[in-house]
């Protein structure tokens, strides 16, 4: 299964390579617009599947302000979805506000797990 670490790695590679960048970045923008999550007031990191131990741990490490804002966005989006309305245009999440607030925590936890995995399977040679 792809981890967040491997996805970030692939993303960095794409951004480093001009030809890939010129293909993928516009596609990504088109995809984001079609997905329409910003029109419900959500950020991309709100969509990350959270019923995994890694994400749960990352959520527990979020600062209290961040977790409050996340819950607020989730409630707003749920309410909009139930009533089959989009938010008024001025309340849409702007591209510059769509920051990866959860990703650094996910990467840190995955790095910890990878390190544990490595140390658990270490072979000592003298």
């Amino acid at each position: 299964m792809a981890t967040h670490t491997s996805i970030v790695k692939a993303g960095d590679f794409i951004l480093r390579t001009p030809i890939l960048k010129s293909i993928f970045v516009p596609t990504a923008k088109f995809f984001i617009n079609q997905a329409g999550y910003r029109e419900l007031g959500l950020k991309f990191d709100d969509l990350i599947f959270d019923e995994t131990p890694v994400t749960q741990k990352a959520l527990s490490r979020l600062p209290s302000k961040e977790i409050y804002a996340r819950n607020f966005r989730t409630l707003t989006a749920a309410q909009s979805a139930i009533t089959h309305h989009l938010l008024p245009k001025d309340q849409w999440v702007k591209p510059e506000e769509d920051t990866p607030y959860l990703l650094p925590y996910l990467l840190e936890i995955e790095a910890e797990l990878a390190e544990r995995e490595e140390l658990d399977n270490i072979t000592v040679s003298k």
Partner: protein
Amino acid sequence: MLSRRLATQSRGYATKVSAKDFPGKVSTLTIKVNAGSRYATKDGISHLLSRFNFQNTTARSALRLTRESELLGGEFSSTIDRDSIYLSAKFLKEGLPYYVNALSDVLYKTSFKPHEFPEVVLPAAKYDLSKANASPIFKADELLHSLSFRNGLGNPLYYDGVQKISLEEIKEFANKVYTKENIEVIGSGINEADLNKFISESSLAQLPTGSSLSSSSVPKFYQGAESRIRASGESVAAIAVPVKTEEFATFEVFSAYLTSALSDVVVSDAKLNKYSQAGLFTLFVKGDASQVSENIKKVALLLKSGVDISSASGLASTKLALASEASVVPHQVDVSKVKDFKLGKFNYVAIGDINNLPFADEL
């Protein structure tokens, strides 16, 4: 161990280093930081800082540190008392460079990540407190320190959550106490020249300069206080006398006398807690309330009438010699001149079934 030698020399950096070398395979390296509970800016902050030791550093993670050290056959510990925080490592002799490096990284490079505080440090601190509080003698000891010294040495040893402490405050405290002047490196089973060489190459040499917190003034003593706490479990009656450094010998012999078969009174524990500039002699009687009441009265009667304790000076000097072998920083006490002992004013604590325990004025 006739080949043992003790040497201290001056160096280019301000940290005090001393090392004893003797044949054997195991070395112990201890960094003593003058940051015990008496120097705490908030109650329990020293304890939390001590629990933050050996967590993630910018050089390596806590897990890696533990696993690497296990592979080398060593172990780390961070302990606290009223005077100091002790960071120690026990390892096979050839591991010295690694352990000097690891210990100094803990002082200089601990990253104090926000999630470690609630996930690792606080549960560990709570565990320490609840384990200690399971013993009524510990509770009595804390109370006696608080009665006898109020502030400073009277500060609680462990973090109890009465004063809220934030991560920022712990960082600030760490910056204040982990300075070149405020720490002392003590090695045993280590060649001093090697130790100095490795220290000058490690991040200990980059520690900021500050001032030693070590107090030189004698704390104020308070005597004649009493405190009683209802609690379930075994009952404890305890007596404490704050002691000046000149009187350490008398109280050392006296505690040896009380805990040996030389005296015919029953005490659970009697000891002299030695700190820099002051000490506290404590005496505990533990058990069923009626039994405790009877025994503490007997002890008090004996002490107030005065006892000849010179018979215990031999025992005391043996005990002291053994203790200074085992301790990190040996105290020198000359017990040969001690003759007799009479109790003057004292602090008294009763814990447990207090309705059946005597008051201080009934002793």
